[in-house]
């Protein structure tokens, strides 16, 4: 049974069709890149999987069951935009997450914050943008979830923060879970991906093992993507 399966998923806003016949299967133990330019449907698809939007038609299954309360328990989601109250301290965000999610490993989160030399009583509003991004990632990766969905985790971060984010994803990834990462910054992330999904104009154009694609097309995923979409 697949961890995540989308079957003929369509999504329209008014008359505009944003996703067209999305079919995908994600097994356990993989890091998968959902790659596409801005405005091609990545975030919409992620919101559908997280039950924040409803498909116009089609089916989304998590461990073979329709999405709902049970799927939310096992999906750890990093949205594109922050939802944390900036007047909270790091400690308060930990409490917030512990209350919300049974699988939140507060000890792990504390360790990761210590590694950053951050005081647990620091207010989010006092932290740099890069640190805020790291905190959010720590919160999301400290859940013992089955599916981690990270929407543009590298958007607007400096190279050192980018390396930190990639390391944190790798360090906390295990064979029982999968990670779905959406991004348009392909070159930065492709090294850690098992599989890639190209999405363009609301459709899945290609889905492949990353190394097999490099071998077949003789180039980096980034180059192949650019060749295909001429951007």
């Amino acid at each position, binding site marked *: 049974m697949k961890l995540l399966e989308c079957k003929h998923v369509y999504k329209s806003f008014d008359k505009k069709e944003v996703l067209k016949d999305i079919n995908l299967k994600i097994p356990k133990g*993989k890091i998968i890149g959902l790659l596409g330019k801005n405005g091609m449907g990545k975030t919409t698809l992620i919101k559908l999987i997280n039950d924040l939007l409803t498909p116009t038609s089609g089916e989304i299954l998590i461990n073979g069951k329709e999405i709902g309360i049970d799927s939310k328990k096992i999906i750890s989601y990093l949205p594109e935009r922050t939802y944390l109250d900036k007047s909270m301290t790091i400690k308060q965000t930990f409490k917030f997450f512990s209350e919300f999610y049974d699988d939140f490993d507060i000890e792990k989160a504390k360790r990761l914050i210590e590694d950053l030399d951050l005081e647990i009583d620091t207010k989010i509003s006092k932290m740099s943008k890069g640190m805020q991004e790291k905190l959010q990632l720590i919160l999301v990766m400290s859940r013992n979830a089955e599916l981690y969905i990270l929407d543009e985790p590298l958007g607007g971060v400096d190279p050192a923060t980018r390396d930190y984010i990639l390391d944190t994803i790798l360090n906390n990834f295990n064979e029982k879970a999968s990670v779905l990462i959406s991004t348009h910054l392909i070159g930065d992330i492709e090294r850690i991906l*098992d599989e890639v999904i190209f999405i363009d104009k609301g459709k899945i154009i290609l889905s492949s093992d990353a*190394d097999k694609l490099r071998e077949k097309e003789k180039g980096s995923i980034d180059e192949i993507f650019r060749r295909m979409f001429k951007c």
Partner: protein
Amino acid sequence: MNFVFDNDRPIYIQLVEQLEIYIISGKIKSGGKLPSVRELALKTKVNPNTMQKALVELEDLKLIYTERTNGKYVTKDQKLLDKFKDKYAKDKTQKYIDDMKELGFEKSEIVEFLKEESI
């Protein structure tokens, strides 16, 4: 261990190549135990699945072997290690010769260059 990758070629192939050098140069000793897949993946900053694939390849080449439940070890077969080292040296030498020929040097000149350079 320091690994550098370019994204243009399959990562697992580059891992095999670089681990091969560590093994044939003796940096990972003959008969020595390899770190776990997970540790190696973290060190090299690659996906553990990719590392696993590279180790399977090295095992197919007989450069490493799995001891049940104990983990993976570098081969004790010195002949095999020498064979790989020899092949690698030949490839490197050929590459150097090709590059020099590309620059327009004759064989005798290439030999002179090697003599002049303190090795």
